[in-house]
């Protein structure tokens, strides 16, 4: 089997586990909109990363800068909610902040290196079918962070979503869990963008969790994981067969799965 296909399959599995481990939690804890807004922050972070490389010659990969920036923005959102702002308003603020940075650094980057901006665009749009060893390594590291967090704190995240006041009254440190959950959303958003691009990540963040809940599964974590694995592998195969970028294939498969689920379980 050709090396590229092996890498693609590997990337598909890693991305599936990252998405499947977290999507149901985002759906239950109503942080889907936050996660989607954080994709703006991924784009903003990428453009800042380009500026750091080309403007200041700081050799930090764009993906790392995007990841760190997205986590910071997520923590800002968590703090805004903790200070009494509604979740909607906090999301609006971070989306506004991110788009301002996108506009500013998009312009600044273009003056520095049009080629770099084109690369960044390819990255965020998910147009590239090239999976580099560095991407695989980074996805593996991210996976080793996300899976233990979700497995360890899944109960607390679900519990806080169920009864936040009760959780506080029982002594759970809700503020810390909010930071953790929002940071998890940021890591997932950044890592999915890394392999699929920002656009299709919108679908992949939502679909496995929604499908797991829609199917009324008793084991949401496993259902979410199974859905995302099916979505990714079938999506990558579709993309390879139809000569499309992986993001297109995954997006098509996610849409088909969602449609089937809603037809089967109205």
């Amino acid at each position: 089997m050709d090396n590229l296909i092996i890498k693609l399959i590997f990337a598909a599995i890693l991305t599936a586990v990252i998405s499947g481990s977290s999507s149901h939690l985002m759906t239950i804890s109503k942080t889907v909109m936050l996660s989607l807004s954080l994709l703006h922050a991924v784009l903003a972070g990428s453009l800042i990363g380009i500026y750091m490389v080309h403007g200041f010659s700081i050799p930090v990969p764009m993906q790392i800068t995007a990841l760190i920036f997205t986590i910071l923005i997520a923590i800002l959102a968590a703090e805004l909610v903790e200070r009494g702002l509604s979740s909607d308003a906090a999301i609006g603020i971070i989306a506004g902040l991110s788009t301002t940075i996108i506009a500013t650094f998009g312009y600044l980057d273009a003056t520095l290196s049009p080629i770099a901006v084109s690369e960044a665009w390819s990255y965020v749009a998910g147009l590239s079918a090239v999976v580099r060893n560095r991407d695989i390594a980074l996805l593996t590291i991210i996976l080793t962070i996300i899976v233990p967090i979700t497995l360890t704190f899944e109960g607390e995240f679900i519990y806080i979503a169920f009864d936040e006041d009760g959780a506080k009254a029982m002594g759970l440190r809700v503020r810390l869990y909010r930071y953790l959950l929002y940071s998890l959303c940021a890591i997932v958003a950044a890592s999915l963008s890394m392999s699929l691009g920002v656009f299709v990540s919108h679908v992949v963040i939502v679909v496995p969790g929604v499908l797991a809940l829609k199917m009324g599964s008793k084991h949401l974590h496993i259902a979410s994981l199974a859905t995302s694995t099916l979505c990714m592998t079938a999506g990558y195969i579709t993309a390879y067969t139809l000569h499309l970028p992986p993001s297109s294939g995954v997006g098509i498969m996610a849409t088909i799965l969602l449609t089937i689920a809603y037809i089967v379980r109205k």
Partner: protein
Amino acid sequence: MKDKNFIFDRVSVFFGDKPALIDVSFKLSHPFFAVIMGPNGAGKTTLLKVALGLIKPISGKISVFGLNPMKKPYEVRRILAYTPQLIHVDESVPIRVKEIVAMGLLSKESPPRIKTKKDEKAIMNALTLVEMQDYADFFFNELSGGQKQRILIARALIRKPYLLLLDEPFSMLDYETKCEITELIYSLYEKFNMSILMVAHELSPCIAYDPYVILLNKRVYALGTLHEVLTEENLRKAYPGATKVKDLIILGEDHG
């Protein structure tokens, strides 16, 4: 427990420039069976949250069995248990009865919170106490209003608290279920010497149990037994919208 007193001493809480509690004072000695009664917006829930250390007063002192909830909130939350109003619980979250009760127990531990066999036995015991042992595997949103309230009480019970705070345990229940829930709550006070402080709009399900009543509408208007508190004069003060119709008093919900 060395100190058996639950004390609010001239406690005031403001949200911005709006008062929620003004100079609220009372003293209850463990074990007690008490009800906070008052109209909507009277500060009843705020009072419970102040006791839990979730809301900070601008003045006054609070002692929860010798502990100050502002200085030691986590210690206070270990000896209190709280059941929120059902409307504040998100029933769209797919969570099972046994998981809800488990969190009451596991929240006392540090993460990772993994259930042991002993914990599972304790969960079933708590469910048995509220007569819900056959519903352990049900999802919360599959239960009736009264059953949901029982589960929230089981979650509180498993923590073996000195004091159980209940916020509107009768909301959205029919009269018969209200009486059943009151009977259950009173049995905890009687059997386990557990202090009870509950917020209620109506006292009729509690009349048989003769609770200590705190009549609140931002200020405390009266304290004492039902007969001492529920006088026309007191009710008119706490419920400015109260209307007398021949030998009846209709309690309005004006906040005053």
